[in-house]
């Protein structure tokens, strides 16, 4: 994993002390809330329904075991003994005291973590593939590029006050586990016809109020020009993005209004200038960063055989374990979606356990997924059963990856001041209705995503079944959408009809699942069947 150099550590430490002083001044009355609010938000500290909420950045979703332990320590010491892993691969604490915030940030800094740029109209935490460095199909590890972007975007003086927040994802597989086309900028490493590796650049995707799938703005960008090209993309946005209208301020609106061709033309024109400025990282600096992501020392000669005689273990194995590029190794997906649990929540003890498992079995590495689960990326197959037993004992071995019980849900109205409706209780009701794991497996891949408001933190636009909570005259109501995908076959879910109460949604999903099971062809997922037959039979079953 990448380790901070002296510069990285110095700026994070300095930021902690700066925020400590700002907090002191706020508590002493030297700063008003109007003055302090943008300062605390720049450090990830929000005021939510019940308390201050601190959002901690987990760059490209990668964590070391000591960092994971620090997250548990903070949850135990300063919060209510748990944390919430988010759809942007971050972690949120829900019960922070203002006076504790500087100490928390100081403790995070000791393990090279921070909460910088987890709020505000700036470039947010860079997201990436949770299988990075482990997936057999990737062109190369995307994380050195994500780290380069982290360093480039941190405190970038020109891009700290963009028209609106800005999210970048970097992937290196054709199989997309990050919703790369639904980011402001999506970067996909791939090979061109000459065999060279470069970036396919998507610009102008996003969810929220106006969901859009990003068009390809550059099919092939030489890797060495990444920074100067992104500078051009951001400069065009910074200059012409709609600062006059909050709801039209994201880059997706600019790209849409200009048209992809015109936006591309303006970027290329700007790029002619930015590539003369010496902005791109020197090769030696990139190599220094990349060295931090050198593959671990995988053992050779390991067997790929796994004893499947325990049927429960075999079920978990089939669902939660993915192929690794190294013979004898596997990728373990840890479910944070027990049937009666809260999607993405983990107790301090569970977080500690996952850190221990990473240290003992996965070269000390963990990953957070945008689907609110955790990954041990480099596990010997010979250790899988021992890991499963420990996860199972801690309630972390539900074998439901990508099944109907593996629901993405934002914190919703239970925690969030922006929400219109609760997301978590609905997720629990749906997971409970389909609690039979054998039935879930029979239904196959079926991604339900729930957002408590139009901001779409629960990615409902990208759900095979998406659910949006709305406020209807003071009552919670839920709009149901079908046909979305955040994967390589990206699509936006379409509203199926009038909304429902919480219980009504569960019944409607039951009916939709019934349509799917009666119409599915061999090997078809729910999404495939929906795309093939269209919405009519689903609508008929739900509303007819």
């Amino acid at each position, binding site marked *: 994993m990448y380790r901070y150099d002296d510069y990285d550590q110095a700026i994070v430490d300095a930021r902690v002390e700066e925020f400590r002083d700002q907090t002191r001044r706020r508590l002493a009355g030297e700063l008003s809330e109007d003055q302090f609010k943008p300062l605390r938000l720049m450090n990830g500290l929000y005021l939510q329904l019940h308390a201050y909420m601190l959002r901690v950045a987990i760059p490209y979703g990668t964590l070391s075991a000591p960092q994971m332990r620090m997250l548990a320590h903070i949850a135990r010491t300063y919060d209510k003994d748990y944390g919430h892993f988010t759809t942007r691969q971050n972690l949120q604490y829900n019960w922070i*005291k203002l006076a504790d915030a500087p100490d928390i940030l100081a403790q995070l800094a000791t393990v090279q973590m921070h909460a910088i740029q987890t709020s505000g109209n700036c470039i947010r935490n860079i997201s990436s593939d949770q299988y990075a460095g482990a997936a057999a199909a990737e062109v190369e590890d995307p994380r050195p590029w994500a780290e380069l972007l982290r360093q480039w975007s941190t405190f970038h003086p020109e891009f700290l006050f963009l028209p609106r927040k800005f999210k970048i994802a970097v992937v290196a597989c054709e199989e997309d586990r990050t919703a790369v086309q639904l980011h402001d900028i999506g970067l996909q490493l791939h090979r061109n016809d000459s065999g060279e590796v470069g970036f396919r650049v998507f610009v102008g995707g996003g969810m929220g109020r106006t969901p859009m799938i990003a068009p390809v703005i550059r099919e092939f960008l030489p890797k060495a020009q990444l920074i100067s090209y992104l500078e051009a993309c951001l400069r065009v946005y910074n200059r012409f993005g709609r600062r006059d209208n909050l709801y039209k301020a994201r880059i997706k609106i600019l790209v849409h209004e200009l048209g992809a061709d015109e936006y591309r033309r303006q970027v290329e024109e700007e790029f002619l200038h930015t590539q003369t400025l010496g902005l791109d990282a020197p090769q030696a600096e990139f190599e220094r960063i990349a060295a931090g992501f050198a593959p671990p020392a995988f053992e050779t000669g390991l067997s790929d055989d796994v004893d499947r005689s325990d049927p429960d273990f075999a079920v978990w194995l089939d669902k939660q374990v993915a192929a690794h590029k190294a013979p004898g190794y596997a990728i373990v997906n840890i479910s944070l979606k027990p049937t009666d649990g809260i999607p993405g929540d983990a107790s301090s003890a569970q977080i500690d356990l996952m850190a221990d498992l990473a240290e003992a079995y996965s070269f000390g590495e963990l990953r957070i997924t945008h689907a609110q689960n955790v990954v041990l990326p480099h596990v010997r197959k010979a250790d899988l059963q021992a890991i499963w037993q420990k996860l199972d004992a801690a309630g972390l071995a539900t074998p439901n990856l990508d099944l109907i019980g593996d629901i993405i849900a934002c914190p919703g109205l239970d925690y969030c001041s922006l929400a219109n409706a609760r997301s978590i209780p609905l997720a629990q009701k749906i997971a409970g209705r389909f609690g039979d794991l054998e039935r879930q497996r029979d239904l196959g891949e079926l991604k339900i995503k729930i957002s408590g408001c139009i901001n779409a933190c629960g990615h409902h636009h990208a759900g095979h079944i998406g659910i949006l909570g709305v406020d209807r005259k003071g009552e919670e109501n839920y709009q149901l959408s079908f046909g979305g995908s955040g994967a390589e076959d990206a699509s936006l879910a379409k509203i199926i009809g009038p909304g429902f109460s919480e219980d009504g949604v569960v019944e409607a999903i039951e009916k939709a699942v019934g349509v799917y099971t009666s119409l599915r062809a061999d090997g078809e997922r729910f999404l495939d069947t929906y795309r093939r037959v269209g919405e009519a039979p689903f609508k008929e079953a739900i509303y007819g």
Partner: protein
Amino acid sequence: MKILTGNDLVTGDVTWWTGDGWSRHIEHAVDVDSQGEAIAAAEEAARRVNGPYVIQATMTEAGPRPAHIKDRIRAVGPTVRPDLGLKPADPTIGDWVI
């Protein structure tokens, strides 16, 4: 009735105006009538509360009940974690919220 709520500046806890101070318990909230905005401004300036605002509520036998579900959730804590709320032992608290 109108009641005044906000968050404690230091702890972030949800608080309710009691007439002469702030309480974490909504049962202590009083009708601020038309004085809410003035009290809010004075209390915020004194750094005793953060982000105060006036809400509509109805008086019930159990005390004031906010008109909007968001404020009812604020009053008792997350519905999915009653163990973290102010009334973890009250089995009827969910009904009060919904």
